[in-house]
């Protein structure tokens, strides 16, 4: 699976797809592959605020815990509640049904510093 080019990626392996002023956020295919089978996800609630670069939740595989970092600042308008019952969706469809949050962006220019799919592919090949 490759990383789709309709979105941008952070160094912390989150993806962001902007649709109007609302950003959908998830983790990349590379990230889910590194984690292994996801068994638990702790996400914030709708209405909470997140700040770029700060943690918004945690994702756990059998062996490890990883923090999730917000790639932009704003208010959470929707949380993918289906992930609490089916966290494995993050493995099977990380760029689609495995999305985590929809955030109303305060300032979409925050995304300017993120990577294109091509840049991200190069980034994960190096790391």
């Amino acid at each position: 699976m490759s990383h789709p080019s309709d979105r941008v990626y952070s160094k912390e392996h989150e993806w962001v797809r902007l649709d109007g002023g609302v950003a959908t956020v998830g983790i990349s295919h590379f990230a889910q592959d590194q984690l292994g089978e996801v068994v638990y996800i702790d996400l914030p609630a709708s209405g909470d605020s997140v700040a770029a670069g700060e943690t918004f939740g945690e994702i756990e595989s059998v062996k490890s815990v990883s923090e999730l970092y917000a790639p932009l600042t704003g208010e959470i308008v929707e949380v993918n509640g289906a992930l609490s019952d089916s966290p494995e969706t993050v493995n099977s469809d990380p760029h689609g049904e495995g999305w985590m949050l929809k955030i109303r962006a305060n300032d979409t220019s925050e995304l300017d510093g993120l990577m294109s799919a091509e840049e991200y592919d190069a980034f994960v090949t190096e790391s």
Partner: protein
Amino acid sequence: MADTLARTTLYEEHVALGARMVPFAGFEMPVQYRGILEEHTAVRSNVGIFDVSHMAEFRVFGFGAFDFLQRTLTNDLSSIAELGHAQYTLMLNEQGGILDDLIIYHSGDLEYLIIANASNRFSDFQWLASLAPDDVELVDESDRTALIAVQGPGALAVVAELTAAGWDVPARFELAEATLDGAVACLIAHTGYTGEDGVEILCSARDAPIVWRLLLSFPHVTPAGLGARDTLRLEMGYHLYGSDMDSTIDPISARLGWVVKADKGPFVGSSAIAELRRTGPAHTLSYLRVEGAIPRPGYAVLHEGVEVGKVASGSFSPTLECGIATAYLPTALAGIGTEVEIVVRKKTAPAFVVKAPFVTSTSLSAS
């Protein structure tokens, strides 16, 4: 560090199968191939195979072997007087601390085979050598010995297919010689550490790739890594050296009193254990079921808001689909049903003390 790691003779097989290799007890070992959950399920429902060649093997023989081991280990060696029989046992220091947990096989006349934890290989051997009398010979056979565990409800049938007609799998906790596929000499032990029925195959390290490929020639046999091995053993409440016990922990606190036989005569650590049995342990290993979070080693355990212990082993249970853990709790709190909380980063998760094993219906409990 990476260049000092040892490899088993199955290293190339693991890499070819796409395993994720991690450092473990000085070896580069497969933590998983396709995924821990998949491998865990394969062992619970079908057959999984594990490379556990990193474990240590010592052979102890001579006229004094029985007396020496009876005085050095905690279990009663006279209960494996018959050739081929095996038992789980412990090696203690004088203070009663656990130096290692072992499986010992009565492998021949005046001869015993010990399987020890890889991380304790050199300290165990040194300890045994320091106590051994002149009429006992000790040989560290770890480097030339491979160990492959074949575990799961279908495991015995696979082994039967690979051995000669008329060869019977030895009874549980027994060992027998066998020839696999008419060519490979090995010892097959009806033991394991997953809670499922199965065997452990000992063979020459040189022959391990042949045995590994023979086992994988069955389409329903899945290679399984250390990740699944850990979740499988934890679901059964089996101890892991370094997590659930170490040289500062005694077997009574660890709920391993059943392998410490007071009536067999003195052994290293016996007076310390007798004293502990009189006073009772201050802390006792407890099994915790955790709701809504995954406990990890080192997380604090609270009782009525006060820290009373830390998670020793902790993981997600693939079978129960919840968190499970062990922790040393004050003995007064170790009773079944005690409610505690586990500090999971910024929150707490409710947990309660349960009876081991966490998972009760396996091919072993049914057999």
